[in-house]
């Protein structure tokens, strides 16, 4: 991957590419279109052919590997990097890096108090302010997100040089886990959890399939543990948490303790596990005093149930996970410690709870430290404050008066791409490049050194954060003599002796100071790699190592799993939730907006929530009984009130919310954001007290009680999924785990029980049930298999598809009218209740039927079945009768009710391989025909048909699916993976009785049969059918 001359060629290529925004809305006038050739062309540039750049995702702190596909100088798609330990997975939010890059609200250049300025002026002013502040004895402070790798090193050195007071905080951070890990194992890192071999997964609120850190690693393990073919078992997932969330929707046993008793339950479980395994050791004393019966009584979970769970934990390999919103209470750290105890007793530490591959999130500060910094700022003791990627005004409770504190800072400097709530009128804004435009690196997981390399130029007057810091360093701390490197806590911990095991993680010791004497940050990163990473790898030449690392996306070490000894001195004390009769308030992160950072990304807003299918707003989840008692109608709003504030929002009567819980999602309710994020929904943090977990200092999102009442007005929350359950229809089917494990191979035929329409025996006996023969596919019959057993409903496939295929976002108003254009609709059927929630997710897309109902009815042949088994859709021929959409039993077709807008700069994101569609045209999934065309073209050059390996992950959805649920391929080839999956006993075709002969087969979900869930296939719903559009 050559990097020379990139700036030049990108500049030219970006111009050439801008003319390529494809559309079938052509101008009737003959336009003069220009061809702009390169002045100097790189050898590896082939106009019209995509280039891939391996880089690192910056959407959250997890730093997964990412590939950016670049066409004509514009990144048009991102996907997981298969060479990276994150396994080629990229979550829903990871795709937002692309929309962030092209967001029309990005700053075009530096601003000073709202007025455009130049970089030189801005930097000079800041340097002066820093000097002044130091002279005045005021603090120069940094409030930013977690940073690792070279940036952190740069910050360390700069901080030491100018005496920077640094607070690194994430709203959905890892303070409790880190505190618990320190307390339990004396480790300054968070252990990694391996789910792959666990037969039982117990989670105390960790959102490990959606918003927690290191999600891709979790999903990797999850998809293996749930796949009966992997280890001959299907893992049982037990969730102890206050509400069914994106992750606990997958739970086989959902056990909500009485709010505030989660830590008690964990301790009781620890005691039960301890007793079951007859654990003997010093830690026994820690649980000696636990009153299991009292805990069961308090939590409302029967003792027998707890004992059963303890049995599952001890009988087979298991893992117990802390974290998430159950963990974000004043007992957060206590709960995490208790789960570590359970893992210790069950023998999981070193097996499924491992060090070695631990998470080093860099400097982790807590909410309390943020508060302290802001208190100082409010008192006028902070002269200069740098804000980097955090939004305290939005994410802190109102009582903390973050806005006032920022206003009181002498000089406020924001490293930002877009406006957010924390930007004050007097701020100096230094626009940084997006994750696709700047150099950088990251080391979150021990041994995983990832590189960020620019895939494109920004076309705006931005600078990389590293470049700015280097400039500061050169100007403010040139005294290279000062060798003082502030030892980061991680390093200190890594060096601390740990009993039993040797230090496994070869943390690079900052043997020498990097200094600031580098041309730019790119050179800085390269220099640091040469000095610190290259020695780890060895090899002949750094130049070669560097190019290989760039191609690979970094340098990755397999570090051995390590065990850590329990060093806990005393059992944690459990405080519990403040007493009261009102339901407890749970503030949970939005699966796509996370802590609100993606609120201005139209796709993050528009993608429906995985459970409620609401978009573009905030909603309140209450129990169905509460909704009934309040007499709420479908379009009513509710008001949630705590003693700290109130908000109004639409509601969702969730069968997964107990009566004593009210849940509100975080992420929306921004007062100051770009065009897509401002004024949507409400901010639930405003309802929270300024309370922290005493052991870690983490903000307690789950610490208030709230009342809910009916509000005046109409809700702006509209469900994209029309019905709560599947009304007894065999759409998303299940089999029992026992059946699934027994029939891994497809010998005995299907084990899915489907609705069958009886046919005349005279017909079935002849085997001729069709009037017409099935179409012939001479070379390929492209098909797909979707394993709903591992699908978590995360929507990564949806967003990847949208980005790949130029699917437009339609905005809140049109979303509410159900005109969402996503070609994949994530069906959600809520079949169960109580302990057995049975939420079934199923990506529903064009089934590419061989006997497609849509094709026959199109009067102009705009849609037809092609030789490759694709249900083709030719946009130009479409008149828009919409007959095809009516006749599609899968409702897989989308209609362009308007010509959708791609605002200035967003249109550069359009994939030039795919037409964009004008109003009045029908569209739908094409199985990414442009990729198929590319692959066929490549293999035609050598005169062969494309092999399975080139097809398995070909489509955007298949390449994006983090759990590998989607397999694509040539079903005509019996050896292909998709053909094998089609033969699985769990495979079924959707609405097969219609005889449409779909090109997609679903693999039924495996569920444990120990509950209310009937074993009989699709007729599993126990909840009565009712419409849910609240």
């Amino acid at each position, binding site marked *: 991957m050559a990097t020379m001359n990139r700036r030049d060629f990108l500049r030219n290529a970006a111009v050439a590419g801008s003319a390529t925004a494809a559309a079938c809305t052509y101008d009737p006038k003959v336009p003069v279109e220009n061809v702009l050739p390169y002045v100097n062309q790189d050898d590896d540039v082939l106009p019209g052919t995509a280039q891939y750049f391996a880089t690192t995702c910056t959407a959250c702190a997890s730093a997964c590997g990412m590939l950016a596909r670049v066409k004509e100088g514009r990144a048009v798609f991102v996907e997981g990097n298969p060479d990276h330990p994150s396994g080629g997975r990229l979550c829903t939010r990871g795709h937002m890096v692309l929309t962030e890059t092209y967001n029309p609200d990005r700053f075009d250049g530096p601003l000073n108090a709202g007025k455009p300025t130049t970089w030189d002026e801005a930097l000079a002013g800041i340097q002066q302010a820093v000097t002044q502040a130091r002279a005045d004895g005021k603090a120069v402070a940094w409030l930013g997100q977690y940073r690792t790798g070279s940036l952190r090193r740069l910050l360390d050195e700069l901080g030491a040089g100018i005496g920077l007071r640094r607070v690194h905080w994430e709203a959905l951070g890892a303070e409790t886990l880190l505190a618990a890990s320190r307390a339990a194992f004396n480790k300054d890192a968070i252990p990694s959890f391996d789910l792959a071999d666990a037969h039982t997964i117990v989670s105390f609120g960790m959102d490990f399939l959606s918003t927690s850190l290191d999600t891709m690693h979790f999903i990797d393990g999850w998809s293996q543990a749930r796949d009966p073919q992997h280890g001959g078992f299907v893992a049982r997932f037990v969730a102890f948490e206050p509400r069914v969330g994106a992750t606990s929707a997958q739970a086989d046993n959902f056990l909500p303790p009485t709010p505030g008793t989660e830590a008690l339950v964990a301790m009781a479980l620890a005691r039960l596990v301890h007793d079951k395994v007859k654990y003997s050791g010093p830690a026994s004393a820690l649980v000696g005093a636990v009153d299991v019966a009292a805990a069961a009584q308090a939590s409302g979970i029967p003792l027998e149930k707890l004992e059963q769970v303890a049995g599952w934990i001890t009988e087979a390999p298991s893992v117990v996970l802390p974290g998430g919103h159950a963990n974000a209470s004043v007992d957060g750290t206590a709960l995490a410690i208790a789960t570590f105890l359970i893992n210790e007793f069950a023998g999981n530490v070193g097996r499924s709870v491992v060090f070695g591959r631990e998470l080093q999130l860099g400097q982790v500060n807590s909410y309390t430290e943020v508060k302290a910094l802001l208190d100082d700022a409010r008192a006028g003791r902070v002269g200069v404050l740098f804000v980097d990627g955090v939004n305290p005004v939005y994410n802190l409770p109102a009582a903390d008066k973050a806005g006032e504190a920022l206003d009181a800072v002498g000089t406020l400097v924001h490293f930002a791409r877009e406006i957010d709530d924390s930007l004050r009128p007097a701020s100096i804004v230094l626009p940084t490049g997006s994750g696709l435009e700047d150099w950088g690196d990251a080391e979150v997981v021990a041994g995983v050194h990832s590189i960020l390399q620019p895939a494109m130029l920004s076309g705006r007057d931005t600078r990389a954060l590293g470049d700015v810091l280097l400039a500061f360093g050169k100007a403010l701390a040139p005294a290279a003599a000062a060798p003082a490197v502030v030892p980061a806590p991680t390093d200190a911990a890594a060096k601390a002796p740990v009993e039993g095991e040797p230090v496994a993680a070869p943390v690079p010791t900052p043997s020498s100071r990097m200094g600031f004497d580098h041309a730019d940050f790119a050179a800085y990163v390269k220099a640091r790699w040469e000095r610190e990473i290259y020695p780890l790898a060895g090899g002949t030449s750094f130049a070669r190592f560097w190019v290989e690392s760039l191609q690979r996306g970094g340098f990755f070490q397999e570090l051995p799993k390590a065990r850590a000894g329990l060093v806990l001195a005393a059992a944690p004390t459990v405080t519990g939730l403040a007493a009261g009769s009102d339901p407890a308030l749970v503030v949970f992160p939005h699966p796509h907006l996370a802590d609100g950072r993606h609120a201005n990304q139209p796709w993050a807003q528009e993608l429906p929530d995985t459970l409620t299918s609401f978009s573009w707003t905030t909603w309140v989840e209450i129990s169905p009984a509460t909704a009934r008692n309040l007499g709420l109608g479908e379009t009513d709003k509710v008001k949630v009130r705590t003693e700290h504030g109130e908000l109004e929002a639409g509601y969702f009567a969730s069968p997964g919310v107990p009566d004593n819980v009210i849940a509100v999602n975080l992420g929306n309710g921004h007062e100051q954001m770009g065009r897509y994020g401002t004024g949507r929904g409400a901010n639930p943090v405003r309802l929270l007290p300024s309370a922290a977990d005493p052991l870690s200092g983490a903000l307690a999102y789950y610490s208030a009680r709230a009342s809910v009442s009916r509000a005046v007005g109409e809700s702006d929350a509209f469900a994209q999924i029309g019905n709560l359950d599947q009304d007894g229809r065999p759409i998303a089917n299940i089999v029992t785990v026992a059946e699934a494990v027994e029939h891994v191979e497809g010998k005995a035929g299907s084990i899915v029980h489907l609705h069958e329409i009886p046919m005349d025996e005279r017909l079935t006996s002849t085997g001729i049930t*069709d009037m*017409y*023969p*099935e*179409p012939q596919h001479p070379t390929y019959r492209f098909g797909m298999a979707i394993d709903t057993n591992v699908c978590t409903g995360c929507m990564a496939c949806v967003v990847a598809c949208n980005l790949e295929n130029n699917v437009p976002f339609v905005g809140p108003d049109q979303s509410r009218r159900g005109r969402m254009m996503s070609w994949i609709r994530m069906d959600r059927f809520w079949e169960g209740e109580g302990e057995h929630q049975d939420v079934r997710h199923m990506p529903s897309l064009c089934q590419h039927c*061989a*006997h*497609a*109902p*849509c*094709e*026959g*009815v*199109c009067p102009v*042949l705009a*849609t*037809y*079945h*092609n*030789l490759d088994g694709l249900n083709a859709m030719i946009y130009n021929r479409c008149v828009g009768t919409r007959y095809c959409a009516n006749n599609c039993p899968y409702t897989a077709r989308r209609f362009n009710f308007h010509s959708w807008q791609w605002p200035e700069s967003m249109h550069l994101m359009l994939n030039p391989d795919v037409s964009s569609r004008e109003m009045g045209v029908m569209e739908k999934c094409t199985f990414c025909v442009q990729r198929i065309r590319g692959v066929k073209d490549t293999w035609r050059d050598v005169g062969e048909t494309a092999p399975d390996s080139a097809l398995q992950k070909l489509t955007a959805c298949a390449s994006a699916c983090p759990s590998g649920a989607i397999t694509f391929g040539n079903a005509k080839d019996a050896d292909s993976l998709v053909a094998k999956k089609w033969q699985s006993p769990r495979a079924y075709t959707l609405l097969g009785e219609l005889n449409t*002969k779909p090109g997609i087969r679903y693999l039924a979900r495996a569920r444990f049969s120990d509950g209310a869930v009937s074993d009989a296939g699709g007729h599993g719903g126990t909840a009565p059918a009712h419409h849910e559009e609240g």
Partner: protein
Amino acid sequence: MSVSVPVEAAASVAPIKAVYKHLDCLVTGIHDLKQAGFRDIHVMTPFPRHEVEELIYEGEPSPVRWFTLFGALFGATMAFTMTALMSANWPMIMPGGKPLVSIPPFIVITFEGTILWASMFTFMGLLLLCRLPARGLPKEVEDPRFSNDHFGIVVERVGAQDASKIKSILAHSGAIEVSGGGDDAAHGAHHG
């Protein structure tokens, strides 16, 4: 019938027109003329009368039916051929798994084509056989009452020698008015 300027203009006189108020008188007039061998007559009625038709055409059906038949056959053939050929023109398309030329759906188009062309041919035949559009009868025998409440007989191409005979037959049959035939004076008895 339409106007045709008599070829042997020298031998003929102006057409003769008789106006009737009563149907039975009209029928008598026609019958008598026929008996007398005058067949080149036009009978004008404001609405169709089967008596008149039977009397003149003696039950011979109108040839319009042949137009209808050929129209139907043409329509059926054309419609089916068109659908089949147009469908076969792009052979790789298999919408909904149906073969290129599938008979059941094409029957509908064939049927519609049959009806359409049968109707159009019928209309064409009507126009041709009725010699429409036309300018109507010669001015001197035109009479607005024929579309209102009177019947009429017009005898064209009357030889000068026959004029008086015809007029007399018409007058005696009960015509309320007989004119033309070279005589400007109106003949005819006015019956009560």
